[in-house]
């Protein structure tokens, strides 16, 4: 494995992803991430001279909507997926602005 992920990196990625990993999980994640990066590195071996940079997987562009209201009030359905509901709003853990 060419890419070695150190503890600081895996801790940092854990913070960004809001994941609390146990020591065993950390070791496993370090290995997985190293292998992923190795795989990505393979792409660097390709000769891309003269190849147009790709911005999207499909050769499609300019998929638009017209500016017309099509949705009505569907609050009850939306709130069905909420962790909690109060006064028509989603209840989430206290968040300080």
């Amino acid at each position, binding site marked *: 494995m060419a890419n070695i992920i150190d503890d600081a990196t895996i801790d940092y990625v854990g913070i960004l992803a*809001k994941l609390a990993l146990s020591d065993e999980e950390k070791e496993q994640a370090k290995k997985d991430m190293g292998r992923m990066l190795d795989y990505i590195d393979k792409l660097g071996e390709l000769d891309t001279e003269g190849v147009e940079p790709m*911005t*999207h997987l499909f050769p499609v*562009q300019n998929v638009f909507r017209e500016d017309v209201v099509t*949705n009505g009030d569907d609050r009850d359905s*939306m709130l069905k997926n909420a962790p909690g509901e109060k006064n*028509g709003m989603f209840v*989430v853990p206290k968040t300080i602005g």
Partner: protein
Amino acid sequence: MAREYETVIGLEVHVELATKTKIFCGCTTAFGGAPNTHTCPVCTGMPGSLPVLNKQVVEYAMAVGLATNCNITRHCKFDRKNYFYPDNPQNYQISQLYLPICRDGYVEIETEEGSKRVGIHEIHMEEDAGKLIHDEDTNCSLVDYNRSGVPLIEIVSEPDMRSAEEVIAYLEKLRLIIQYLGASDCKLQEGSMRADVNLSVREVGAKEYGTRTEMKNLNSFRAIARAIAGERSRQIALLEAGEAVIQETRRWDDAKETSYAMRSKEDAQDYRYFPDPDLTPVYISDAWIEEVKGRQPELRTEKMKRYKEEFDIPDYDIEIITGSKHMADIFEACVAICNQPKKVSNWLMVETLRLLKEKEMDPEDIRFSPENLAKLIGLTEQKVINSTVAKEVFEVMFDSDVDPEKYVEEKGLRTVNDEGALRKTIEEVIAANPQSVEDYKNGKDKAIGFLVGQTMKAMKGKADPASVNALLKELLNS
């Protein structure tokens, strides 16, 4: 000798676009709905939902870019900005990092030293977040996603400004351009225009920029001016004490006139941007740019020039009236009806400005219709009411846009044109004020003013002062 410092300021201005629907779904952007009644799976970030770009957002962004001398990016696309915060239901904001729609523009501002260019680094399109409300009862936060997905453009300037005055001139300029384009109403207080101030200080003559901070929560021009003064002093005090300025985001508290750091160092600002695979790239052709250019409405400088040619009104009036798109619209619509530019301009410049100032309102908040102003002008022209009554009627019209013709009839405010009644009243006034009559006859011309006043009072203001004056002279000299 005390060191002299220069303030270096760049702005990030967010503007809410005036589209009917959100940027990626068909939900309304209307204000004031009950919480979450303007939401759908897309703007609440439900898994599997597919965002589709609102074409009008692209056209507004292009219009603003063209009006601020930007280059339009022919191939542009959207990226995901990843962060966790409950007002952002997807855990990423759809924005543009790598290929923003507009780049390398500028606007001209007027400063004491003359005209100056403020560079525009880029303009990009993105979505707004929802609103968080703290719930005291449960000690939880409640989220309303009605604003989630409302289209924004972010206009990023170069660090070209050196004072609060320049910042405000730049914001005023942007606001006017965008209002004229109809792309947004740009109200700072209501949050449809928001400015974040990036500020650093350096010794006068220094080549390198100092470390900058970013200040948020500035919702009036006054708050911006105070925040700039406050942050400049804070940074200078740090440098004078031999300490370093830390690059951070600070929140301005206008009531306390102080700012505090918003994020601690442990919170990494690492947004891990990557192209949004749900959205296809946008290709902007020359033909499309020309089409948007062709639809570009008359901007302020063009309007000022046209007013000068078309209307016989002072330059100062033109500057004030065109200083608000809404006021200019009222002016033009009213002139189109009554064809009295000077009269319309006078009502706007004198009574309207007076009432706006008195009631602490912006010209954008004017509610009376051009039709009603034209009617009021017609009533005074035809001497149906005198100017004092007209001012009273105007005040009512300013508050509630009443129809002045109906109002004058209902309140019985018509000028009394019955010469018999007027003659009778004047005779009574003359009889009751022998001293003034004596004074007038002894050459004290001022005495007639008093007699006119007494007559107007007796007529409850409903007489034409010129007729009163003429008739009084006639009776006194007879």
